[in-house]
């Protein structure tokens, strides 16, 4: 049931990608060579410490790397626009509401035994991918 729901929500998020406002010109640049916006977001959201690195590495193993570099940033942050720039506080609130929705839907991921909201796990995977942040 849980797996099926997860699968459906993945499908939905991928199917909706072409219509997301994030594709508009004012959207954050989240993938490709110029991913400065994404790196800035991650810096604001996630501390670079051994704990997040270890969890991030585990998370990264659970996803295909092109999924992490392309689909995840859009799913997580695609609805944010560049102007005005989201503050750290806004970013956290945004992630928090994604996590709430995940927990409501039973959409959780186990990383090294931690049962996390899917969005949290995905953020950690992104951190691991962009280690240098």
């Amino acid at each position, binding site marked *: 049931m849980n797996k099926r729901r997860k699968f459906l929500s993945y499908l939905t998020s991928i199917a909706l990608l072409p219509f997301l406002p994030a594709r508009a010109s004012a959207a954050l640049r989240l993938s490709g060579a110029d991913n400065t916006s994404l790196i800035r977001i991650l810096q604001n959201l996630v501390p670079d410490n051994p704990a997040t690195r270890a969890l991030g590495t585990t998370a990264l193993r659970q996803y295909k790397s092109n999924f992490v570099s392309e689909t995840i940033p859009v799913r997580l942050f695609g609805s944010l626009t560049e102007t005005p720039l989201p503050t750290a506080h806004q970013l956290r609130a945004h992630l928090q509401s994604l*996590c709430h929705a995940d927990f409501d839907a039973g959409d959780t991921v186990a990383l090294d035994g931690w049962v996390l909201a899917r969005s949290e796990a995905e953020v950690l995977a992104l951190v691991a991918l962009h280690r240098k942040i």
Partner: protein
Amino acid sequence: MFADLRELPDGHVANCDLCIIGGGAAGISMVREFIGTTTKVCLIESAREYEDATQQLYAGAAQPARKRARSIKEGVHYGVPAIHSRLRHFGGSTNHWGGYCVPLDPEDLEKHDWIPDSGWPIGWRELSKIYPRAQAVCEIGPYVYDDSLWQRTKTEPYAFDPQNLVNRFYQFSPPTRFGDRYGKALKAAPNVTVLFNANVTNIGLASNTASVDHIKVSSLGGKTGRVAARHYVLASGGIENARLLLASNDIAQRGIGNERDLVGRYFMDHLYDSVGSLLVSENPKRLIAQYAEIVPDQAGHPLAEAGPDADSVMFQAALSPSAAAKKRNRAGAVALFIRGDWSRVDEGVRAVYEAVEREDNPAAENYGSYLLDILRNLDTAGPAVKNLVQGKSPPHLPVLFAIAEQVPNRGSRIALADQKDALGMPRARIDWQLSELDRRTFAQMPDLLAGEFGRQGIGRVHKAPWLDEDALYLYRGDFSRILEPGRHHSGTTRMARDPAQGVVDADCQIFGVSNLSVAGSSVFPTIGSANPTLTIIALALRLADHLKGRLTR
């Protein structure tokens, strides 16, 4: 009055109306009900005080060597030796019980299609009418186990989704040591004789096997005697009740009440283990206030009216899956306690907690409610974080400790061994067997908690490594090796409507034996997650009511 078999002439025969075998929680609760009546009661008890030689009578047949280590690789044979899981002297196992009291849930008595052999022959309403009397015997507060207990704790209860998690409340007995507490009243009662140093070694059936004629008793020094009564109640604990019935095989060759090979089967116990740990992201004070012990000493609190003798009654809240969640997960009942040494949190974590607690801290609201925030602030707690990430819970993480139901399982049983005790009785062999359903009962908890704790912003759950799917394959065949049993021996003379399904009927009388009843958790067809003693006492009082009617006829 108190009597001692060692001081009576050898071969002495005592006569009474009601003979109760075993002076523990069940036996003593029953006898008290007859004080001041015209019914002559004889309570047979192994010993007045703890004695090593008597306690040795409780030793089970030798078990394979156990390993204490909890490493997943090595595996751990768990299971407490029979001798250490109960006490054989006046007051029985209440001489070391913890005093946790909680009634069964209504759904614990119902039949569930996913739990084989579930369903009690009596309804919860009937039990709940007697629970208030059992509360008084355990010296706890009024029969209140609902959310009204939060009153005056000055904290707002968490709004868990009732389809997922429900609160479960426990009250604490002082704990009442039944022998010490009620011995005097029994001694003073003219219609009661407590016969000490009398070990029942045989329940003697009449030759037609339809009734008990007498019981045989022996002291360790070699004195023997008999007790003849109109009615007998076996109240010697969940292992011993079965052992005595099976060992009394001189007239009924398979043992008493055992025509269908059910005596000793369906042996159940509660399963104790940690299901994980909790990284608290919100102010832990609220969690502590609600899920740690609370003394409701304020006037007006539902438990403050506990009665003139009672000190303030404590209660503790735990969390359980709702009836809907158990159905969804096709699993049994479980109660979850949040435990931990909150006073010894390490520096890094304390810093986080303090920052969150300080109201004047402008950053407090930004601490948010998720793991990433916590990890951000744990930089100072390097080694602890390392442990945490590697899955070893550092001591400051509150542990999620579960008490889970074992579901009925015909293969799990008490049988007789070849070895004999000092009185020549075959020792009990415990063959404890768990099932995949029992594993599911535990495994449902971390996910339910993670979802609700995450949603509420309480924190994040770390699943105990032993529940990991990949680790569990090691144990599938022998799941019992990693768990600690609760020492709540149950199910071995289960209650049923039909003799094909149980040993005693809904009045706790052994099918086919007109004057022999059983008291204690051995009659429980299922055990829920509730510690058993409150229910044992409620059923003992119900049996006393029933027998009063019969014996005064």
